[in-house]
């Protein structure tokens, strides 16, 4: 096809594709405008405006538009959406959000609020109407519970529920109780999700169960989507795994929801494609060294570490992990694990704690428990099995030789 195009001028199907893409974007833009108009017509749920926030942060409108353009690109949208993303942030004051901690370490909240410089992420945190967030809110005890109950009632069917942490279902959810009445996490998730417009599972624990769900999973921890599926609650869920989830991905998903009134396209594991469709490996700055076969040989290989060689042999799981860390990075784009010199541990993959460990050897070194009491990797088990087979062969061959000797002796006797 390439050669044909080279000789016969522009490929007509290529033009078709371009036209169709343009048409699709225009349709998307119309959708966004319709939804943003609808949202703007609603009363703001709190009295913050974009101008206030910008002034407080010492940002100009120009800075704001630049940040919006970056966000647009991250969402995989063309420049015609720049102003729409900016508008989505302005009307985000109409978007009530409830952030509920479950069986979590609060690391995702921390990652979201610990930004050194004001960016889109933190800006949006100021703008959205965060009705309930244990980490950030002033009230505590019964007062906090009242706020939650009030928010659920007032914005029934309109708010976005963000969950952080896994849902422990063992012992009727008794492993996690929240608030002055000791309400279980199971009950909280059911109640909040049932009345939500959409659910965002922020972080690997709430997406797939994460570390609490690692074998042997004593609390029977599970991801929010799996839990809701089990309980037959049909609220749409978007999974934003990673440990912690990149704030860009949370903000992008909220913005996408504000813009289009629906959740983004998801992959097989419920992750938005705009953030999770590419492998870490394919967007890695050290990828060239991988293909060249140049690896950091171990943590004492100072030369290799200094040269920034590929971290595959010290256990990088980038080839098995899907996320956009290499592009958006963490802490305002400052760095990310592979840039800092440690391999990816695949924290945004389902069951990563069981399937991708040990973290500092390649996947081939994955350890299995054996009936002999010691754990071993596949190659060790295979080598032992090969040795056992070889021993069996030797014994069988020896036995056959003995048998053949007796047989020929008895044959000789018979002939006599």
């Amino acid at each position, binding site marked *: 096809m390439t050669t044909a195009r080279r000789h016969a001028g522009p490929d007509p199907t290529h033009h078709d594709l371009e036209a169709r893409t343009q048409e699709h974007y225009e349709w998307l833009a119309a959708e966004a405008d319709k939804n943003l108009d609808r949202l703007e017509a609603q009363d703001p749920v709190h009295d913050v405006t974009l101008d206030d926030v910008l002034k407080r942060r010492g940002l100009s409108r120009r800075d704001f538009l630049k940040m919006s353009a970056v966000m647009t690109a991250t969402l995989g949208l063309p420049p015609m959406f720049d102003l729409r993303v900016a508008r989505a942030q302005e009307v985000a004051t109409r978007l009530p959000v409830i952030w509920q901690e479950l069986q979590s370490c609060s690391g995702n909240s921390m990652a979201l609020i610990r930004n050194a410089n004001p960016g889109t992420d933190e800006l949006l945190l100021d703008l959205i109407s965060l009705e309930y967030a244990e980490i950030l809110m002033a009230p505590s005890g019964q007062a906090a519970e009242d706020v939650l109950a009030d928010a659920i009632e007032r914005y029934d069917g309109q708010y976005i529920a963000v969950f952080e942490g896994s849902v422990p279902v063992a012992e009727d959810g008794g492993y996690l109780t929240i608030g002055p009445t000791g309400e279980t996490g199971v009950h909280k998730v059911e109640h909040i999700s049932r009345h939500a417009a959409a659910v965002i599972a922020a972080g690997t624990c709430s997406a797939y169960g994460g570390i609490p769900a690692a074998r042997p999973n004593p609390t029977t921890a599970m991801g929010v989507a799996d839990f809701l599926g089990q309980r037959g609650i049909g609220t749409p869920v978007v999974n934003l795994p990673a440990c912690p989830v990149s704030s860009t991905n949370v903000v992008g998903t909220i913005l996408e929801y504000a813009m289009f009134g629906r959740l983004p396209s998801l992959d*097989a*594991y419920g992750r938005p494609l705009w953030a999770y469709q590419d*492998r870490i*490996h*394919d967007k890695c700055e050290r990828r060239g060294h*991988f*293909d*060249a*076969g*140049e*690896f950091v040989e171990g943590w004492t290989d100072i*030369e*290799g570490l200094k*040269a920034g*060689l590929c971290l*595959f*042999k010290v256990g990088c*799981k980038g*080839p*098995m992990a899907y996320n956009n860390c290499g592009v958006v990075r963490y802490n305002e784009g400052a760095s990310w694990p592979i840039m800092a010199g440690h391999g990816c541990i*695949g924290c945004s*993959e*389902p*069951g*990563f704690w069981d*399937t*991708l460990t040990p973290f500092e050897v*390649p*996947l*081939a*070194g*994955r350890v299995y428990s054996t009936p002999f009491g010691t754990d071993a990797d*596949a190659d060790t*088990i*295979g080598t032992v*099995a*090969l040795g056992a*087979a*070889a021993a069996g*062969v030797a014994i*069988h*061959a020896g*036995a*056959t030789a003995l*048998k*053949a000797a007796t*047989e020929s002796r008895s*044959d000789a006797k018979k002939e006599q």
Partner: protein
Amino acid sequence: MTTDTRRLPPRKDAVVLEREGRPRMVVYVFGRYVRAAHWIRNALLIWLVLSGIYLGNPFLARSLTGDTSSTFTLAQVRGWHVAAGWILLAFTIARIYQFLFINERGRLGLGKELKMAPILVNWKAWRDQLAFYLLMRREHPHFTYSNYGPLQYLVYTALYAALLIISVTGILIAAPYLQSGVAVWSAGLLSPIETALGGIANVRTLHHVTMWFFILFTLVHIYMAVWNSMRTGNLLVEGIISGFAAKDMPDAREATDDDFEAPGEPAAEDTTKEG
């Protein structure tokens, strides 16, 4: 295969050898394709295992001297690993097609080998076969409707299943490294398998573990082939090179179609009796 068939020695002209004190006739059992495919698959598997071990844990030392900007050691090993995998898959598909759809007459139909499946639940066959392997009986059991013993049938079926598993997982692993083409296209079709397995990491693990089946199979297969060939004097190890193996004289017991095929009939394709 018709040229091979014409060289099948008719009963009267069969070369008769004295083996283990008994007269044996030497007949043509492995056609050219069967022999070529056997050794090509063997070579491919050796390369795939060696290169696969490298890809799982790259052991070749790097060069830190001079410019390595145009060095692509791992990418090249991966490329040739994937290429060999596709060739192996082609042979596997041909073999499975033959197994399922080539009948006794060498024509399209219900596979001759597929029809041998009842050997798997023939408990007398199991007992006789295992007794023979455990040196509790001297004569190789004779199965009238199957070229294979039950254990052999089970292991060969498992081998084709393993070849399919390692090919499917291989395609799923290879596809993300490619921009377009048949791997990307077929990985799109196969992606539900990846999802069901719980992600690309488990696909890789399965690919790696399946490799050990081939390594173990090779050891046991070679031993059983040599052992059978020596114990029964059926010349099957020589047969996979020359095509000719020894069979009991048909008149020694009740003659079956397998013992003798008239000229013009296609040769029995894969009468592996080694183990």
